[in-house]
């Protein structure tokens, strides 16, 4: 199976208006090459599901700067004043979701589960319009799965079979997103021969990865 793809071609797979799960936490563990190329190609009207929008000029913040995002689902946008401005101005529709719930919603989508029954957000603004479920006298909030057209994943290493590992807190949302994107595009800081990542260290099996960015002139940040 040939899965290696040039940066330009990978970004070209993603049409205007697509929904994207994008890994990373404040830019740590975000797919910076893919983000940069989407900006360069002038993509518009995207739906982005991600933990945050980092800062202006950084990570997903670059898509915000470029006004490429029309809808956002995130747990935190407080570190990016440009995101705040766009939301307050009504240019960007943002749904705020508790971080743990967001992670589980993405996991549910990728795992074929119908929803998440969580105590988080019960009785708060977050519960508005959502169903609750009473189970043996305890009330739970029902949050629905979030899948997307694409998952853009940043790995630490990828091997020739597209098995991925992650480093430290750069792992964050990437593994769940790799299960919930209908097409999964990964970039890795290193591409290594099969066997360098032992079976027990693989966090995302290559079977989940549709495309892996070539190590080409676009490499690096």
């Amino acid at each position, binding site marked *: 199976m040939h899965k290696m793809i040039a940066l330009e071609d990978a970004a070209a797979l993603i049409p205007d208006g697509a929904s994207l799960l994008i890994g990373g936490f404040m830019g740590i563990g975000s797919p910076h090459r893919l983000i940069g190329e989407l900006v360069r190609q002038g993509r518009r009207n995207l739906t982005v599901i991600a933990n945050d929008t980092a800062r202006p000029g950084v990570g997903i913040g670059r898509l915000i700067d470029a006004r490429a995002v029309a809808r956002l689902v995130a747990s935190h946008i407080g570190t990016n004043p440009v995101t705040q401005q766009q939301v307050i101005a009504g240019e960007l529709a943002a749904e705020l979701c508790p971080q743990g719930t967001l992670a589980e919603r993405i996991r549910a989508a990728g795992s074929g589960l119908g929803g998440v029954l969580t105590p988080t957000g019960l009785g708060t603004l977050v519960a508005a319009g959502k169903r609750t479920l009473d189970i043996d006298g305890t009330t739970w909030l029902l949050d629905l799965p979030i899948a997307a057209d694409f998952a853009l994943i940043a790995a630490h290493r990828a091997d020739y079979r597209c098995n991925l590992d992650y*480093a*430290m*807190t750069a792992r964050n949302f990437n593994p769940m997103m790799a299960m919930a994107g209908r097409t999964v595009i990964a970039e890795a800081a290193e591409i290594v021969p099969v066997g360098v990542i032992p079976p027990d260290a693989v966090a995302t099996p290559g079977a989940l990865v549709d495309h892996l960015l070539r190590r080409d002139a676009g490499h690096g940040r």
Partner: protein
Amino acid sequence: MDAKELIARRIARELPDGGLVNLGIGLPTLVSQYLPPGLDISFQTENGLIGVEPLPEEGAEDEYLSDAGGRFIGAVPGAASFDSCFSFALIRGGHLDVTVLGGLQVDEQGQLANWMIPGRMIPGMGGAMDLVTGARRVIVAMTHTARGEPKILRRCTLPLTSVRRVDLVVTDLAVLAPTARGLELRERAPGVSVEAIVAASAARLILPADIPEMRLAG
């Protein structure tokens, strides 16, 4: 000693030996600087690590390792990293012994508001709603007032972070314990009178016979 240091030193005494603890961004992060000697605490950061420690020195930044605010951190020997689902399974599943979080308001029900000011500040809740809902013990670290306005209220006017009653509120003036009967004044900051605390609060406080001064760690 400034207000933040006072709060951090007082909270440092609350952390249980062997405990797993999450410190929020800002003031709560200071708590780790004042741990009593010999105390064995594991610090979690919700973006995916148990074993947070400060960066040992400038230049040692690992571009793959930050705290929940995006600042580069270090990791202790024996640290463990994991994904966001696992991290919040720890939090929501009751495995986190203590979370220390900042606050905008706390009320007589012991409920906390700390994630948005409608129309003015919409940072989002990040991990706060899960932390307040799921941690075994929730400690709020905040100044008693903001620009002269009380933050201890009869009822929160800002959107709640959780309906769960927090366990302790430590301010630069007082230690308050939310109970089923209301907010109990437990301790005074050094040199601060009960009357001053009552005056700086917009909530009814339960006043026990004995309200000692805080003891501080570090």
